[in-house]
């Protein structure tokens, strides 16, 4: 497992961008790497906080398990759902092949 303290590498930036399905240029890789190193060093103060006695807060909600009645409701009409589609066929979104 990599050490969080180690400096962010270009390969990691490329890897993370790939995970995020984000195309980036070689020049952007270097720029983001340097900027993120700077940001991460500013964020490092986070580790100084003593969090050994507290749970994590994922959200601030008071309500739990919000359910609605199991009733049939109207939904978005197909035409409305498709009206912004860059590419469609009949009542479907058209996508490129996933496999060759």
């Amino acid at each position, binding site marked *: 497992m*990599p050490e969080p303290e180690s400096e962010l590498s270009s390969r990691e930036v490329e890897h993370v961008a790939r995970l995020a*399905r*984000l195309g980036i240029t070689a020049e952007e890789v270097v720029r983001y790497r340097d900027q*993120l190193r700077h940001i991460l060093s500013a964020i490092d103060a986070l580790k100084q*906080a003593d969090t050994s006695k507290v749970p994590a807060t*994922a959200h*601030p909600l008071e309500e739990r398990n919000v359910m609605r009645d199991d009733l049939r409701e109207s939904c978005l009409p197909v035409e409305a759902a498709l009206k*912004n589609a860059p590419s469609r066929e009949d009542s479907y979104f058209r996508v490129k092949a996933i496999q060759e």
Partner: protein
Amino acid sequence: MTLFQRTIRELHQMLIDEEISSVELTQSVLDQIDAVGEKTKAYLLVTRELALRQAKGADERLRANRDVRPLTGIPIALKDVLCVQDVVSTAGSRILKGFSPPYSATVIERLEAEGAVFLGKTNCDEFAMGSSNENSGYWPVHNPWALDRVPGGSSGGSAASVASGEAIAALGSDTGGSIRQPAALTGIVGFKPTYGRVSRYGLIAFASSLDQIGPMTRDVFDSALVLQAIAGHDPRDSTSSLRPVPDYLSTLRNGVKGMRLGVPKEYFVAGMEPAVEQAIHDAVRLLEQQGASIQEVSLPHSDVALPAYYIIAPAEASSNLARYDGVRYGYQAPGAKNLIEEYMATRQQGFGTEVKRRIVLGTYALSSGYYDAYYLQAQKVRTLIIEDFTRAFEKVDALLGATSPTVAFPLGAKTQDPVAMYLNDILTIPANLGNVCAISVPCGLADGLPIGLQVIAPGFREEIALQVAYAFEAATDFRKLQSPLMRAAA
């Protein structure tokens, strides 16, 4: 005084007295948009025909005296992160250029039910990520007080529209200060309600555990009116609170006599401009003269709020923004050979620099091997920040501090240094992480640029924040200050 310079309260009275019509009022604001819009660039889209149609409808409602509400006939600007059915809504991003939402946000439906008039969509940082409005995918906004300066962000267009007379009020959204900081930098009132107070349904998401919609107005009274209209449970947003909404006007004028107000010592941060610090000290003294008891308090984890935020918000954003894939709506890159190439090219070409930076940062913080050190640790720090506020509010009713450590800075001054830009939100972020509410109210000028006083109140105690801010405003003349653009056109 010209109509576009007035407050909702004044205009509502004039409308019900039939001194003016909503069409006249709306035309006055549209004329001001024509006069100064090229200077501020506050709007991405002006919905002229819609506004005049709604104004006519409001006038019929007023004439018939049928369900007349405080916002009936009042022209309001909407931050571009809010979906309005069949009105292009882009969140300031090229990736959503031309996107026409198939439904409206709940806040939009509530304003429609009030009979409000929609002027258009205001410019903002792309997906609300920024503190200067320079991250807009379209163009930057200029501060009506000094056109070579930023209006703050991310609700910079909403702030500039209210400060320049291009709207009577506006809606913004606040994830780390995006309502309060631009309100402070443009001399208006901006209110971030408690998370859960206002429905987020139809708000284009940035960081879903932090985002909250709120009012941007000329004064505190108007802020209460707009919040009253938009607050409350919404079955379509399961994170909206079931707590009843109090009548904010009934306690607004109660004053601060006998109230306990705290001044967090950590909120006088390094890098704070002396004029801002002086204005806050003066504001605290004034509230003491009004009968409040003042004490210094400590929010000991304030220094780790900013680092925690810059993990949590990008992490949530990286997940939220996964939906922009070029398939269902928005931009689709041409010429890709297969689906994954299309995703990567669409997002590369469609997103701006800051958004990409945060997607990479957020994905990194969530990735295997770093999750515990960054994301989990940040969520635990969030708990410490919540506890800081809980302890402080055992001693005091509300907290006072600056909204922004500086006044509006020149365009371009911080665009090359993301960390310097992030520091703008150092005093506003804790309220988002801590699940409390906070309002910014004008408290002076430094070299002709506005300064904002921030009043922070406990979660779901919006009435306290409004009450303190109103008492401060009523004891000063700051609300009468108008930007040069607003004055010049009068």
